[in-house]
């Protein structure tokens, strides 16, 4: 049997006296999409951030490709494979195109190839005509799509999306939802924290629920 892409076990996390996880377990298979739901404040974002190495402390075991991370040090190489998108993504104060190029440049992709891949990702996100626009001129939906495109073009082994449709409504929400669906169909391994009923209803996603400080597979 193949080992899961990511496995967490014996996970404990507390903020002060509040216990978020108490022996939680999680296993994510490569090529699968997952939606993680749960009440507000139950730790969905914290879980995603722990997987992405953005939380200072980790008590428990985290394995990626069967390699463990120690509690003290999150492996630097994992950052090239696990990409996290904030609920309200941050776009650097430059153009949309340069934002998309950022991660590719960090991976040493040559400029010519970068530009071609960025153009393709902009097309995918429906932002081809917004390539030279600074972030403060993008709508909330456009910013979210730019962040999704920025993450997708890195072709991460695991993509973590935190409430991608929150704060959006109408057409903007639908466009983001379409991109999220496309990502899941496209064989990416995606873990989405969301309350959005439409995301939770997506048949291609396995459902996980955070309850009683543990993760329940439905």
């Amino acid at each position, binding site marked *: 049997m193949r080992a899961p892409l990511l496995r967490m076990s014996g996970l404990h996390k507390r903020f002060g006296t509040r216990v978020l996880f108490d022996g939680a377990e999680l296993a994510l298979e490569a090529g699968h999409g997952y939606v993680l739901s749960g009440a507000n404040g139950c730790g969905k974002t914290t879980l995603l951030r722990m997987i*992405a190495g953005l939380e200072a402390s980790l008590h428990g075991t985290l394995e990626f490709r069967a390699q463990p991370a120690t509690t003290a040090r999150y492996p*630097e190489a994992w*950052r090239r494979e696990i990409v996290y*998108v904030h609920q309200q993504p941050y776009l650097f*104060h430059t153009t949309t195109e340069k934002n998309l190029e*950022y991660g590719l440049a*960090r991976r040493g992709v040559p400029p010519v190839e970068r530009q071609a891949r960025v153009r393709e990702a902009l097309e995918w996100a429906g932002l081809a005509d917004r390539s030279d626009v600074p*972030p403060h001129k993008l709508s909330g939906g456009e910013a979210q799509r730019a962040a999704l495109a920025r993450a997708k073009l*890195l072709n991460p082994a695991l993509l973590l999306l935190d409430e991608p449709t929150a704060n959006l409504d109408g057409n903007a929400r639908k466009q983001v939802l379409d991109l999220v669906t496309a990502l899941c169909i496209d064989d990416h391994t995606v873990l989405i924290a969301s309350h959005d009923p439409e995301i939770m209803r997506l048949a291609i996603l396995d459902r996980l629920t955070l309850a009683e400080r543990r993760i329940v597979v439905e």
Partner: protein
Amino acid sequence: MDLFEPTRQAFALLVTGDAKLWGIIWVSLWVAVLAIAVTAPVAIAGGWALAKLKFAGRRAIVVLMQALLSFPTVVIGLVIYLLLSRRGPLGVFELLFTPWAIMLGYIVIALPILIVFTVSAVQGADPRIYETARSLGARPLRAALTTLWEVRFAVMAGIVNAFGRVVSEVGCALMVGGNIAGLTRNIPTAIALETAKGEFAQGIALGMVLVVLAIGINVMLAWLQGRGGLE
């Protein structure tokens, strides 16, 4: 007192390219610019470390830097004088009454300003900047540089502030530079000297240069901020 005639003479000195006057302006500019250029990288890196890294004494250093902001420059001049004087610990370098002594004073004056502005900018930066950079694969140094780039206007405001402070500073420059014509006489020390002698034209001309410099740098900063998308 008649202000018109000295002002007219001041304009004449500036427009005709009076060598003595422009020499004084040149000394002021190169010493101040070089001092800021030398200080800024160290101070910005230090400011980043103070804002982001947790180590013993960090808070005490920040408080010290804040206290140094209001330190009288004449006292800084006195300390540097004592260090550089012939019998001082750095006397062997024979830097006293040279532009390098003034530059040393400027570095001491500018360092806390640049550090405090950088600490404030980095602490006020959106934490998602660093996290986004890291999550997109940037190593810690690159993510730090990305954060600094995102708060560049706040850091640049520190540079402008520090430059404005040193270029108009008189106490330290007078003490450690000695106000030697053609060598260490700069805009503020020349204004003080010429005014004391009753030679107002040169003082007014140099004062106008300082005012134009102050306005020009701030207009440039505002323009850059506008281009950067800050409203």
